[in-house]
């Protein structure tokens, strides 16, 4: 059970003079149950890449396999694929259309041809998963706040019970509190259900805390594909491609350069604190 990308190319604009190469020989294996961060600067091809994973875009070169089957085989059931690989677009609240929150979340499972009861059960469960209170269920989705709308939209995809959940910039345009809430909710969901989660972002800060693997895209190619620690150690190269390592990486580098014996491969503030305390203890021991 996994997604495999085999030398995938994608060119926008076909054979005209305006053709843009959005993906360039991308090969990836996405095994079950991983929590992945897909990072890249604007225009690096990360959104294009995720639209390939559920068959919305067809690669102009290469193959994509889901659970061992080529998703662009003529007899492959795309609808089934889209229920298994759930994609939440950027600003997903722009896709809401129903008269109330609950019916909007029902849209996905209903399209799968499930019974009314199953549809409603799933919608209810999905809305609970994103932490929306019951009192909002029968309100118009357009009366909700930005963060709430986004939860509803994410629930709309979760209700299809995907094995893989892809979120394209789920925190774009949210305030820090809304951002942390959404990300914590996703992390909790991941811990509870064990599904594969791919978090698309341009911010290392956002993903560093949660993911176990980071894929860095640059100009349509995979630049790094490794653990967060390993990726952040290339922080100078990351800057060159318009990204940045989390701020703690810079602090630790600076501390080390000023003579403090700390390890620099920490990714979160908590780890940095522990590392600095350790270094201080070592310092006071050797001082005695």
């Amino acid at each position: 059970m996994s997604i495999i990308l085999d030398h995938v190319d994608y060119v926008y604009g076909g054979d005209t003079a305006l053709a843009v190469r959005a993906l360039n020989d991308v090969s990836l294996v996405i095994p079950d149950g991983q929590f992945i961060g897909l990072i890249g600067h604007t225009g690096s091809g990360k959104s294009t890449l995720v639209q390939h994973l559920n068959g919305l875009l067809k690669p102009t070169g290469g193959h994509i396999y889901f659970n061992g089957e080529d998703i662009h085989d003529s007899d492959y059931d795309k609808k089934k694929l889209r229920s298994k690989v759930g994609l939440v677009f950027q600003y997903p609240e722009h896709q809401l259309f129903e008269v109330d929150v609950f019916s909007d979340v029902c849209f996905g499972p209903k399209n799968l041809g499930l019974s009314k009861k199953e549809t409603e059960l799933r919608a209810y469960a999905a809305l609970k998963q994103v932490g929306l209170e019951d009192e909002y269920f029968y309100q118009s989705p357009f009366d909700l706040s930005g963060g709430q709308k986004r939860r509803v939209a994410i629930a709309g995809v979760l209700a299809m019970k995907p094995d893989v959940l892809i979120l394209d910039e789920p925190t774009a345009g949210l305030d820090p509190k809304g951002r942390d809430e959404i990300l914590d909710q996703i992390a909790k969901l991941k811990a509870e259900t064990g599904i594969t989660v791919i978090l698309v972002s341009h911010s290392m800060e956002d993903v560093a805390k949660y993911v176990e693997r980071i894929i860095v895209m640059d100009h349509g190619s995979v630049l790094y594909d490794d653990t967060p620690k390993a990726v952040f150690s290339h922080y100078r190269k990351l800057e060159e491609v318009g990204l940045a390592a989390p701020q703690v990486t810079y602090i630790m580098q600076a501390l080390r350069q000023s003579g403090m014996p700390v390890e620099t491969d920490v990714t979160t503030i908590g780890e940095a604190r522990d590392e600095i305390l350790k270094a201080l203890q070592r310092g006071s021991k050797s001082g005695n």
Partner: protein
Amino acid sequence: MLRDITLGQYYQTDSVIHKLDPRVKLVATLCFIVSLFVVKSWVGYAAAAVFLVVMIRLSHVPFRYMVKGMKAIVFILLFTVVFNLFLTPGETLVSVWKLRITKEGLRLAVMMAVRLSFLIVGSSVMTLTTTPNSLTDGMEKLLKPLKIFKVPVHEVAMMMSIALRFIPILLEETDKIMKAQIARGADFESGNLIKKAKAMVPLLVPLFISAFRRANDLAMAMEARCYRGGEHRTKMKPLRYAARDRVAYGVLAAYFALCIMIRIWL
């Protein structure tokens, strides 16, 4: 998905026609269309064809782009040709079953086809070589005299340029919403007409909401910049006729005079 739609799109290149003042091109297109209805003989159509071919060559736009616009009117074209061919009374040439093709019908059908396709290609020379913005600028300037009759010329031009500006944005938006709903299992392709119409709801509702939101934002941004309509408004790049525009008017006048002469003497 929707990128194939060409709505009189601008084709970026460098040519004499591109550099002409939009007013010249507007007047020229109008004259060309009128000339198609002025001439009635084959000689006249030959003159129009020569004029058109020269303009296309001068515009440096590949010919296939011109023909692309024809796709949209293929149906109307066929419709006109077929009806004229079979339903014009006159001297019978061929008769199959109850249908008769007459000499007059054949002549009329061919003429109509030529007229329609020249019309479309002629106007696409203008839209392909003029950006929507300069087109509305030109229109505003040309229609200025109508202000005497209290026609809100500036407002109409402004609305046109905003509408044109929004076409690609809304197309992109449609594409995005469509994909988002397909990702939720929506099906826009299969089913009968009613089912298809119903399937449009999840696309149209968000699209309208987004259009209104954008319109609102734009209105607010314009207001914040103290926009208050056409009175006393100056332009950063006002339209001014250059030497080549005067030459173009000369060529146009000559062509139009020729058409009228053909009509009178031939």
